[in-house]
């Protein structure tokens, strides 16, 4: 049971535009996003005394703090494992403000992942040392398994075999995301929905993952501002209460290559997160009106429904059928368009969309939202959170 459950809130969100070429440096994107989050909340940047980052962030907190004119940082942390750490930045910030380690904490991601270094090209040529981190890639990279899509594909093939899922089932995730993105002026794919047939015609990237199963590397920045619920009530926006935020690693954990577990079709680290969130909030799957599920590759969205108990193991293909995950369905997901449709900002934009759903300001607003589930990277050490309208 997390003692900070329902005690803290996301009070500000701020983003740059999302694009394939921002035309400016990642540091500018980071500062713009942070300033926008502070302005959204009505908090002066000088009041910020904590920064919560996750790895692969190259705009370090001291650089951003200098640019924001922050005199003292009392709390700063960096969660490991890239995209798995998105919601964990909120967990760290929540713990920090709840404990008094800091009053206002900024969490952010900003990069030119498309126009500078493309993330999807993989790790060939990296990891040339002899530490455990380098050596861990020796079991995959020499065989040509070097990109995130390729790592994810190995899970997807077995998931299809064991559970009877098809490429069309993966495609339904992409169709839902792109339908939602089509309504979102901020989305990369605004006005550009896709059909299942278009998904099926898209080229193979790493069998069975097709082009339209993949998020696209993006340029952009997204920041969040977190403080206590007491302070939140005096700020500019309706608080998005952090019902709970938690991390998870499970046995046999590797970074996107947990291939040696008895069953490789689940995401047990996501199960670790799910159990903490349900226990700490007292909520369950039927209490969730909409979910922002990490969607760098569609096949790894399906087991998230299963780990959180929306359906049984292997049943996600049935759960998502018939438009269930689209606006108007029983659990609309990724109402901003997700990372397939809005932008791939390592999941931080999904947290911001969760905040908008709680505020009632999404372009694809779901009716009567009280609780939103948000997850971070799948297949990696991960995290998740529940945002809610309700305080203690």
């Amino acid at each position, binding site marked *: 049971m997390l003692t900070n459950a329902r005690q803290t809130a996301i009070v500000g969100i701020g983003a740059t535009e999302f694009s394939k070429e921002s035309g400016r440096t990642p540091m500018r994107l980071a500062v713009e996003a942070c300033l926008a989050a502070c302005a959204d909340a009505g908090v002066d940047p000088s009041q910020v005394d904590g920064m919560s980052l996750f790895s692969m962030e190259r705009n370090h907190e001291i650089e951003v703090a200098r640019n924001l004119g922050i005199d003292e940082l009392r709390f700063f942390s960096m969660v490991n494992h890239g995209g798995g750490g998105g919601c964990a930045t909120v967990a760290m910030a929540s713990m920090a403000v709840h404990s008094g380690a800091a009053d206002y904490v900024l969490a952010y991601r900003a990069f030119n992942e498309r126009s500078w270094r493309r993330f*999807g*090209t*993989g*790790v*060939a*040529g990296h*990891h*040339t*040392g*002899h*530490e455990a981190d*380098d*050596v*861990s*890639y*020796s*079991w*995959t*990279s*020499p*065989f*040509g*398994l*070097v*990109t995130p899509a*390729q790592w994810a*594909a*190995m*899970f*997807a*093939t*077995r998931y299809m*075999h064991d559970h009877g899922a098809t490429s069309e089932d993966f495609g339904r995730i992409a169709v839902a995301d792109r339908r939602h993105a089509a309504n979102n002026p901020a989305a990369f794919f605004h006005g550009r929905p896709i059909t299942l047939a278009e998904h099926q015609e898209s*080229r*193979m*990237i*790493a*069998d*069975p*993952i097709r*082009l339209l199963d993949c998020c696209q590397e993006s340029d952009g920045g997204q920041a969040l501002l977190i403080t206590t619920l007491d302070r939140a009530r005096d700020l500019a926006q309706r608080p998005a209460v952090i019902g709970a935020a938690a991390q998870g690693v499970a046995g046999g954990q590797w970074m996107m*290559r947990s*291939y*040696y577990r008895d069953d*490789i079709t689940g995401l047990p680290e996501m199960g670790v997160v799910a159990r903490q969130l349900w226990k700490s909030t007292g909520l369950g799957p039927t209490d969730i009106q909409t979910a922002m599920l990490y969607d760098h590759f569609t096949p790894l969205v399906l087991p998230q429904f299963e780990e959180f108990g929306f359906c049984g193991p292997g049943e996600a293909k049935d759960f998502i059928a018939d438009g269930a995950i689209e606006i108007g369905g029983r659990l609309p997901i990724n109402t901003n368009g997700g990372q397939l449709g809005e932008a791939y900002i390592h999941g931080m934009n999904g947290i911001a969309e969760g905040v908008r759903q709680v505020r009632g300001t999404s372009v694809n607003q779901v009716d009567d939202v009280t609780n939103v589930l948000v997850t971070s990277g799948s297949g990696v050490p991960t995290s998740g959170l529940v945002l809610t309208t309700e305080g203690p």
Partner: protein
Amino acid sequence: MDTGADTGMVADWETLRSLVGLTGQPTIAPVAVSADVVSMWCVAMGVTDPAYVDGAAAPPAMLDVWSMVGLDAGIGATATTDDPHHRAYGMLSEAGFTGVVATNSDQSYDRLLQPGDQLTRHTTLASVSDRKRTALGEGHFVTTESEFRDHAGDRVGTLRFTVFKFRPVSGGPGGGDSGAPSPERPRPRWNADQAWHWEGLRDRELRIQRFPSGRLVHPPQVTDPATGEPAGGPETAGHHDWVVASGDATLHSWTVTRHPPHPAFPQPNVVGLVELAEGVRLVTNVVGVPPERLAVGMPLVLDFHETHEDVTLHRFRPVVPPRHDRRRPADEVAVGDRLPLTPIDVTVDQVTGGAVATRDPQDVHHDPAAARDKGLPDVFMNILTSTGLVTRWIGDWAGPGAVLDSVRIGLGSPTHPGDLLTLDGSVTSVADGSTIEVAFTGRTERGTHVHGTATVVLPDSGPTSASGSGG
């Protein structure tokens, strides 16, 4: 790509074209059908069918071996008879089209040949193409049609044969390999905790970590996950114990890496997650399986290949079933039946031994320097060996009593020592109750080496003699 009727390189194009349709003098095969030559051919092709190994009959695909001049004649490609097709070859060579590769061979057989048969060959120059451009360079396709007759004058088989006479591209193989260094395959990194595993691979053994509890673990760890004991036990921490994998495995999952392509890997590159018979999994490459034939659960067997000066990696290939040892009557065969995927290591021995066994004198099949002079990176497999291997593979699947009736072969990219040639095929028709057609391809990492069809007469289901009388 057709470059039109630009024939300026050949001095007397009209004379060359006037030879088309003419038939040369009958030539008597330099060797009679003999059990010894059959035996050597069977060894080179891997034939184990007693109907042929025992010397009672010659495998049908040896049809034109008997009329080949043989390596010891030493006259290479420059035979200078007045026959129309030899004159055509000579005129093209003089015009600079000195390279030669076979591209098509359509054989049909009237009866099985027995030791003592003495053949006579009648060859007609069937066509000479306009100048064409291929991956090898520019040149002309020359097609001959031959009939083979026995001493009684009866036809025993026919052969339609096409070669490409081309102008070698200087500076390397015509396939576009410019010799520019390609980026290195990512190399494994190790430290003292895993060095024993990589050292084992260099000795061509796949080592799996074994803890004192008997538990096997891969990838290696420094402690037993079940007991917390250090590798090697408390007294010998730092010493690593292992078992050597048997090499048997099944495919647990797989992907084909396509985009972005990494230049150090073949395209497509198959990465498999295999479960070893010992119960641990590892990521590896799967070779010899076209992507459309990958299937979770398929049996695989261990193989090794050197990738760097100091690195040998494991890879896995399909398990090849043994020769079908009972009759396979046509009513047990259906359209769509797959023949077993069969990878064949293309070695120097296979290429040169095949050339010798098929009595092929062309230097490009046994002399690497000659091959390079003619624009190829190394010696390459001759079409008669490709034909022999394909027909042996079909015969092993078809089983005792099956007799090859005809085979049509088209060659694509040449195959060289070091390649893995994987044969794949399926039944495309079942007719007359006993004659079936098989369509096949043989692929290497360079592309499709061989493709074609074969017709086979399957035996009745009754227990008659295995060595049939021919189609």
